[in-house]
């Protein structure tokens, strides 16, 4: 994509619109600019509040991706229950 000035401008356009930015191989200078742009985009009040649906769905996704997590959780609860109500 064009020159550093345009690449950084496109990145800023994306983050202020809360879109996933285009990817490109950045120079060291561009990387510094990208990181500070991301930081500025994320710094305004309320901007960093997670979407409720994401919070709800992410645990289900994690449970599927790490299948032993839920299984281990269930096993642990059964063990605790057995200890309390033998």
């Amino acid at each position, binding site marked *: 994509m064009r020159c*550093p*000035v*345009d690449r*950084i*401008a496109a990145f*800023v*356009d*994306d*983050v*202020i619109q*809360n*879109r*996933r*930015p285009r*990817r*490109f*191989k*950045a120079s060291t*200078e*561009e*990387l*510094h*600019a*990208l*990181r*500070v*742009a*991301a*930081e*500025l*985009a*994320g*710094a*305004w*009040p309320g*901007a*960093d*509040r*997670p*979407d*409720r649906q*994401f*919070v*709800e769905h*992410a*645990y289900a*996704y*994690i449970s599927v*991706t*790490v299948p*032993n*997590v*839920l299984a*281990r*959780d269930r096993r*642990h*609860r059964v063990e*605790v229950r057995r200890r309390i109500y033998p």
Partner: protein
Amino acid sequence: MGHGQLGALATRSPEVHVVEGALYTDWESIYQDNVVKVYRLMFSRVGNRPDAEDLTSEVFVKSLPNLSLPSPVVQVNGYINVAIRSVLADHWRRHYGAPVVDVEVENIGQANDVAPTTEGTGRAGRILALLPERSRAILELRFLRGCSIKEAARELGVTPGNAKIIQYRALRLAAEIGQGMLS
């Protein structure tokens, strides 16, 4: 996970209560206690929702298999902090070719880790305050007021091409100021 609980989770005040010797006894509590903190930290580093959501999930996928239950809260925070650094470093390496270096990130589990940012305060506010007027103006127009490059150019009385150059220089300057704050 009940929706009522999640609703409370998404909106509750970001206070941190770490009791010495406290234990996590189930995965859901680990997730509930940390998901918002991890998300906010990720958002502050990537600046957009889709990436912040992906990276937040990745942090849990990476850290949970390394834990066993029950686990001390301090230990869980430690695993999550390691995963945050690794996931962020990988994000910048994979998508922007950044060299593999240790990423500077606040630890979750610290009292000030999720303090809400208010306009003009916080690191971003301090960086902006230290910029020359024109640099600060373009960044405020873009990031605070959400102006397009054309709108920002009009406000500054320059061409859109010039506004992009002013913005690029302003961001490089802001990065230098930010690095100076770390050292």
